[in-house]
């Protein structure tokens, strides 16, 4: 019984305390102390423990893959070797500029991340080519707006019409902002409702198994 009730109680108390805390003025010393405990003690401790959970899960997954020689087990060896290698580099040689771990970061991680992000440019081109077809009136409006905004954001826009960048800015600050605000209102209300359901224990999926 306590396996279910205790997390629900903690969620309820935590949620209600944070709601009440929002309405307490910043000058209140109790509120300041509470925040201090949260920021300098609890959250750093809990945050640090997540690393161990992640590492344990990763090791378990790849260890079993290697042990059972499943398809692609060689990549698991590389994964575990990379984790171990980076840990050794960091612990032994430190993290200052010029250390092996920062060299690995700058010459391996940064280019790899940038490569994946740059794939977006290609995918965006192919998605735009496929999707921006004037099939309906709404699709045509979307197409024309995308056209105007893209032109307005680059140098060619001013060659065609000197006020195009200003018109683009108008599209961003008026129609775009209106629809963003509308979606944001809906999303925020949905978020509040879901959060209230979690606080009051109506939504319990985050607890995992049901009894």
């Amino acid at each position: 019984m306590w396996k279910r009730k205790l997390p629900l109680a903690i969620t309820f108390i935590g949620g209600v305390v944070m709601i009440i805390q929002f309405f307490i003025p910043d000058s209140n010393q109790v509120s300041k102390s509470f925040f201090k405990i949260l920021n300098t003690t609890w959250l750093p401790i809990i945050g640090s423990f997540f690393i161990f959970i992640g590492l344990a899960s990763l090791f378990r997954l790849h260890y079993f893959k290697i042990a059972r020689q499943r398809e692609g087990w060689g990549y698991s060896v590389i994964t575990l070797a990379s984790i171990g290698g980076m840990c050794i580099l960091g612990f032994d040689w430190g993290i200052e500029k010029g250390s092996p771990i920062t060299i690995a970061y700058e010459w391996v991680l940064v280019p790899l991340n940038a490569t994946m992000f740059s794939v977006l440019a290609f995918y965006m081109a192919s998605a735009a080519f496929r999707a921006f077809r004037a099939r309906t009136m709404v699709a045509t409006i979307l197409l024309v707006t995308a056209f105007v905004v893209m032109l307005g954001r680059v140098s060619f826009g001013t060659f065609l019409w000197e006020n195009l960048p200003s018109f683009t800015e108008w599209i961003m600050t008026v129609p775009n902002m209106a629809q963003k605000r509308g979606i944001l209102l809906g999303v925020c209300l949905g978020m509040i409702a879901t959060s209230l359901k979690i606080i009051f224990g109506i939504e319990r999926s985050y607890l995992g198994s049901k009894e």
Partner: protein
Amino acid sequence: MTFWQKLANLDRRIIFGLMFLAVLLPLIFPLGLPIKGTQPPVKAIYDYIEKLPERSVVLISISYDPSTIPELYPMTLAVVRHCFRKNLRVLGVSLTITGVNIGADTLKTAAEEYHKQEGIDYVHLGFQTGLVTFGMGEDIHETYKTDYKRVSLEELPMMKDVRTYKDISLIVDYTASTTSYIGSAVTKYHAVLAVGVTAVGAADLYPYLQTHQIIGLLGGLRSAAEYEILIDRPDKGVIRMDSQSIAHLLILVLIVTGNIAYFITRRRKV
């Protein structure tokens, strides 16, 4: 398949190849396309920094990953250069682990150009877990305790009179998507915030710009290029705009071509 049908269903690989050339060639053979005009949200940040008294503190928050360096690093460097040129003090923080080195690099690069000293003219606090954006509103020294090189903040001359957001004249948060400072620094502690974000994320921040919760917005590479022109230091932002312009043009040509092919093939079916 007719020519128009083939065009309407153009192989992805051809599109990828064209995009590759569109991005690469202007980097090798710069076109020097002019960047005319400045968007008002970009000018707003520039004007605000211009009006700050000397030795004011500007908080530069790096909340992005290496993947968005090409878009966000030029604007980060441009603003930091502007701050150093105006003899302002710069406090760097990072809300992501991978942003620590990016922040350190940015501050060091600009500091060397303007002969600024670490600890006196700029400090980089690095990364910290927890509700950092709230913690800094209460006490920066309690939240961070040391800078990213583990030097105690009490030993740094710049940090003697910098304890909360009240001592910071402007926060500039660089992020790939959403900013964490609006709900904390702006709403709770009434700090002044400007945001530098990727072009995709910029559209989301216009509601906050309109309500003056942020004073200015740098959205994407074009904003970075405009800011570099404003501070009269054209750099990577301006150089990369050629590629962006040609890439955009290519997408527009592809869209037009695709639509023409679509209408022709549709008419033939009918």
